[in-house]
């Protein structure tokens, strides 16, 4: 993994595929390559609701990336410092070795340039202190990016809040002498919850 963490709060995602376009638009890619994909699973009945689930698939920026190992020219690199995996287009000769090596299909083919392209966490933006394109413009703000300690697990926080709310309600409903439920304490102190705070 890189030092960064791209978290998809799938319960809030609406599968609108906007993130895919934000990504392509930012990199000015022609039709064909898709650096991130929203995979739709379902629907299937959960109770009486036809639930659909979404999986967000960018590059996972592996610890020991096979694409980097497979690249004969050294174009595919893992950036020292933060571990972002990216292609140096000056060195890429378009042999597609990285595309064959990656188990996730992360490196994609740019038919216009004749070179490999892949999700690089929008490193030019990250270096300017900005969020990646897909995160910055996500319709529901369900994508979160940063160093692991900066990214609040929105799903866990939501659960914690619900539990806390329930605990309070239970307290109110207790008989006067009964045992009292304790409101749940958040596990880790968080500066800000991006869902609430943004």
């Amino acid at each position: 993994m890189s030092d960064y963490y791209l978290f998809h709060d799938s319960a809030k995602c609406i599968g609108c595929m906007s993130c895919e376009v934000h990504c392509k638009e930012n990199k000015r890619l022609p039709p064909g390559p898709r650096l991130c994909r929203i995979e739709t699973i379902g629907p299937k009945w959960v109770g009486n609701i036809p639930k659909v689930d979404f999986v967000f698939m960018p590059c996972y920026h592996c610890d020991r990336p096979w694409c980097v190992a497979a690249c004969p020219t050294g174009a595919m690199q893992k950036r020292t410092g933060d571990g972002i995996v990216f292609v140096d287009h000056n060195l890429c000769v378009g042999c597609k070795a990285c595309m064959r090596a990656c188990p996730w299909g992360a490196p994609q083919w740019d038919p216009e340039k004749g070179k490999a392209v892949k999700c690089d966490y929008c490193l030019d933006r990250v270096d300017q202190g900005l969020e990646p394109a897909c995160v910055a413009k996500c319709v529901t703000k369900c994508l979160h990016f940063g160093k692991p300690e900066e990214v609040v697990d929105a799903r866990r926080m939501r659960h914690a809040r619900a539990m806390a709310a329930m605990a309070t309600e239970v307290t109110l409903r207790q008989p006067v002498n009964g045992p009292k439920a304790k409101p749940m304490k958040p596990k880790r102190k968080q500066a800000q919850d991006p869902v609430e705070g943004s």
Partner: protein
Amino acid sequence: MRKDIYSICFMCTVRCPIKVTVEDGAVKWVEGNPHQLKGALCAKGSAGTALLNDTERLRYPMIREGARGEGKWKRVSWDQALDYAAQKLKAAVDHYGPQTVAFGERQNLNTHLSKTFMRALGSPNHFTHDALCKGSVNTAFRTLTGYTDAEVAVDWVNTKHVILYGRNLFESLELKPIQALLEAKDKGARITYIDIRSTITASHADRFWMIRPGTDLALNYALIHVILRDNLYDEEYVNRWVTGLTELRAFVEPYTPEWAEEETGIPAGEIVALAREVGGEKPQVIFHYGYRGASHLDEIYFRRSLVILNALMGSIESKGGLIIKKGPKDAGFGSFGKLVDQKDLPKPKGERFDGAGGSRFPIADPAHGVAAMLPLAILNEDPYPLKALIIHRFDPMLSIPDYNQNKKALDKLDLILTIDINFSETAWYSDVILPESIYLERSDSIQMAAGPKPALYMRRQCIPPRYDTKPFWEIIRELARRLDLGRFFPYDSIEDIWDLQLKDMGVSIKDFEAKGFVSLAKNPILWDRKEGLKFKTPSGKIEFVSSLMEQNGFLSFLPYKSVTPPPEGEFRLTVGRSAVHTHVSTQNNPYLNELLPENVLWLNTEEASRLGIADGQYVEVHSDHGFGRLKALVTDFIHPEAVFMLHGFGRQVPATTRCYGKGASDTALQENVSDVIGGSPGLHETFVRVRPAS
């Protein structure tokens, strides 16, 4: 040089505020206005740059050379194209009278200019696409409250419960409402979703009912029955603000939940449960009144039932309910100027071609007209012949049901003039094409966004036009000048129009710089629910028994007629929208086309197996009006009586190579029939036959 420019998106009709970053004359980045949308943007919004650079969009003025629809065009200069169009328009006006010219468009920021043009010309026939979508919603609202649906806002963020009827909010998306509703959900709001098929909105709902197609009205009559029977309505509000409760009570008496169960397939107990639930949550309850849901010849009664449900909840002009929009005057500002308000501009006179406000549709809204009447009026020369049609950012050919009939009708015209950014089906069939610059390349009239907190927004030019195109305000002025109507267009630049709009407002153009909009009110303006509501009906109240309807000979309550199931081997054709395309306008966009290149036919699993159709296989769909060929999506998640397809595919313009011939067009199959009162097309009235493609 890098510069941020605030503007307004126009990839769909929602008009989200955007921030555009321009560097060295090129658009580098587009995002939602961070002050309003936290930077979020939808797929269509981001694909704006793909539109900008698309070589298949309209790039220069053209005059038709071959036969209509043959695709032979002559590139001409702007002067030649405008002269030609003006001369043809003049011929129609001089020989047959100004009423034989009609102007149809999708409502936009410059609609006040188009209306000015038509009034100056002396024709009453300006119409918009609106009635094709929600004509009956508009009429229903007016019959009950005196306001159109467009004058009402939804307070998503404060609601406790939203009930959506085929309003697939998360796919046919609007950014602000989605963000607000998800925020409300975090605070515990609930969603009930009713549709004939599952959608992503259903997936996010707390309750989902797969209703029998066409029976939404039966469900609502039963809900009203229970709400009145069990006194679940907002008594104080209803006693003060509603007339006709007694009549309604008597009317819904027979419509029990058990009766509705038979009709809709929704268990009676569940209907009662929903009524009780919303009864406890009122007035922060929204029965959403648009836009899909059952779409039939008596649609207006379904839409009325929705407004009635809101009224019973006391949710009209309530926090977390519906709020009547407030304008600059309510916020203590002066009035907002429109070109159409010029004193010497002739008033529209004579009967409209579509009968709106006249004999045929006496209470439909003449501000929009009834677009579906266009082919019928042309073909039958009823009430008079039409000779020339100006079309702006609208595609009647592919939006009005019955494609073949539309084509036959357009054939009869002397002139079809299209002003657009893309080759629509209508543009392809035109005589002259005047290409408009896209929203990133032009400035437009200022937007007055009325609402609980009224505000002004500005679309600003970000870069110079990429091709030989012009903004609409310039095109229409040039056309007017050539018809000796220039005096009604007293401006030289967009700044002149802005000055005219802001003259009496006490707001200056500079005020837009900081955030791209000017807020006219700090807090939502809500009228006092006890005494301060201002309904625009004769009684000043919400009229369940509507004076507007009754005076024009219409029943206020329509006894329910059972919906006939389709005959053996046939299905009710239903339609809808996706998250990545806008109606019929984006199918050829390189990025959006890549995501969704064609539509498929949703078909219930059991029905499919009976017909021998496998998932993913091509099928032929036939109706009495046309034919389509597309892939089947075989699924358990659609009602067996219905099939479903996305609107806007099956395109027949070879010049738009990416979407040409992909999927099927719903309008090729549908019959052109309209709601008898509101005039919106009965999009779900057509039965189709499906078989494996040979």
